[in-house]
């Protein structure tokens, strides 16, 4: 049985629907990437699952955590899940820490909440966690405030705080987007190492395909509030079938190959208030037919594993090409 199972999750803000029925399964210990442009609903999916969206959001559908429904449960029940079963770290680490509290106290707060640790024991454990995420001289720097750390260090502290509850699943919401490239690599490394050490599952939300391939086993590509393609990292990255997924790769520079002109995806993400009638990607798609503009393809299982929502997928390369 999957650890978390999301069924037909829909979210709208003040009547504007931004999530149009998401289905996702996360097994224990696996790492899933959630890919897509800004505003496609990657973060909203998990904020909705944990009840972290503002009050004006309407959420429907189902999020089951080992058989327990999270959507519509009383606040107390969902609070018991947050941090303890599912922890979350965010995009902007510097402003995600309370600026007027010492970082040690913020970590100890989680330790007290989830593991009942207090006083010296909590302190020692907080130091161990800070050590684990690579904050040097943790014992003294526990007493510093968030503004006294760099962005990368703040993200490490956020990760330490997330680990404090020994969660089964860590949602990393664009954890490296606000950081320098070298720091990004360090944080990705750290997340990968922690996952191996603790065996926790991870959902890695990013628009950075490289980061996703480095960390995840499986990925789901989202466009305009829907999943359009999902599958194992290998096949998905070697032979993307959805024109949008393919477009994401074409827009990336390839360091190994000859220099080539990057192919951007023409047009812009549609306004959620005025989504096209058929496939939301059709207006930007080079392969779209009349059918794509009138009907919407469902997310269907594919022969080689994975799922795809497209009437005219990018053809698989011929056998000869693969071995060429």
């Amino acid at each position, binding site marked *: 049985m999957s650890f978390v199972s999301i069924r037909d999750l829909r979210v709208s803000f003040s009547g504007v629907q931004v999530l149009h029925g998401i289905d996702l399964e996360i097994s224990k210990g696996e790492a899933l990437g959630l890919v897509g442009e800004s505003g496609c609903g990657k973060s909203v999916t998990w904020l909705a699952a*944990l009840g*972290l969206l503002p*009050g004006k959001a309407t959420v429907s559908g189902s999020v089951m955590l080992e058989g327990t429904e999270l959507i519509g449960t009383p*606040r*107390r029940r969902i*609070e*018991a*899940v*947050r*941090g*303890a079963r599912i*922890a*979350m770290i*965010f995009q*902007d680490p510097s*402003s*995600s*820490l*309370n*600026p*007027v*509290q010492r970082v040690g106290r913020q970590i100890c*707060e*989680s330790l007290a*909440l*989830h593991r009942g640790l207090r006083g010296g024991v909590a302190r020692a454990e907080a130091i161990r966690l800070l050590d684990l995420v690579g904050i040097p001289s943790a014992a003294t720097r526990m007493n510093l*405030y968030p*503004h*006294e750390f760099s962005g990368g260090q703040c993200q490490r502290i*956020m990760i330490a*705080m997330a680990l404090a*509850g020994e969660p089964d699943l860590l949602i990393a919401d664009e954890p490296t987007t606000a950081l320098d490239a070298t720091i990004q690599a360090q944080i990705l490394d750290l997340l990968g190492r922690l996952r191996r050490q603790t065996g926790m599952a991870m959902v890695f939300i990013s628009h950075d395909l490289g980061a996703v391939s480095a960390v995840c086993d499986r990925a789901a590509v989202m466009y305009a509030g829907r999943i359009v393609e999902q599958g194992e990292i290998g096949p998905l990255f070697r032979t993307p079938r959805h024109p949008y997924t393919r477009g994401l790769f074409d827009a990336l520079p390839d360091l190994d190959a000859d220099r080539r002109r990057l192919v951007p995806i023409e047009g812009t993400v549609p306004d959620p208030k005025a989504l096209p009638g058929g496939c939301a990607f059709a207006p930007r798609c080079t392969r779209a037919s009349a059918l794509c503009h009138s009907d919407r393809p469902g997310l269907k299982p594919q022969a080689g594993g994975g799922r795809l929502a497209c009437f005219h997928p990018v053809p698989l390369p011929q056998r000869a090409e693969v071995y060429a």
Partner: protein
Amino acid sequence: MIRYILTRLARAILTILLVMTFAFVVLRLSGDPAQILLGPDAPQDAIDTFRARWGLDDPLWRQYLAYLGQILRGDFGTSMRDGSAAITLVLERVPATLALTVPALILKLGIGIPAGVYAALHRESLADRGVIMASIFGFTIPSFVLGLLLVLVFAITFDLLPAGGQDSWRHAVLPIVTMSIGGIGILARFSRSAMIEVLGQPYIRTAMAKGLPWRDVVWKHALPNAAVPIVTLVGFMVGSLIAGAIVVESIFSWPGVGRLIVVSVANRDLAVVQCLLLVIAATMVIANLLVDFAYGLLDPRLRSGRPAH
């Protein structure tokens, strides 16, 4: 840290000096105390004697230097009206004023902040709209209108409370209510927006994602951050404890500092007005110093001299 304190202190002293100078010059350029105190029918030789007695014939700069010398010796001058020490006249009135302003301040804090925070936590609810409406009413109605309205209703129509005087605690009720309504409105409005601002910050989402109960998110993470802007406003209210009751004391014939200001200015009782302004400026400056100090306690980013973001 010591440098921080010293610059603040120097700035405070400069502020007080500027207020003193300004008051001195303006008072002397805006009317002749001899003429006003002795009346329009006073004989010329009486006026001349009076002017000579108080040194009003000297050039302005000499009067000013003499005044500064006095202040440095701890002498705040004597009242031209009854010859008693100006500082005594002022300090005598302070308790009466504080008897109004301190309870009013407690009401402002005790009602304004909780109402604002509650409204922010229940945004767009009926209670929120009620708080907004009430606070707009509170800070738009001038205290002289509100004071008279309260007198009309509670003193004249229903005869529940006295309309003026200082004989019992019942006499203090209307002035205190009049004084606190505006402040409650402003504080409620301000606390609400400060709290809404903080509740939208990413660290609040972090605190929720941690699994903290909502009550702890509010008390341990939101309120300490919202306190920083609120303290500024409260500091201003503390600074107005001495001088904040001029209108209300006049309406309710309350013999406090405010009444003394009105009477002394009307009489051009120079030493008393100057002394009053000095005391008022000092209170405001001290309140500001306390606010700066509180900032440091509340926000570590300000302690290290970096701007808050």
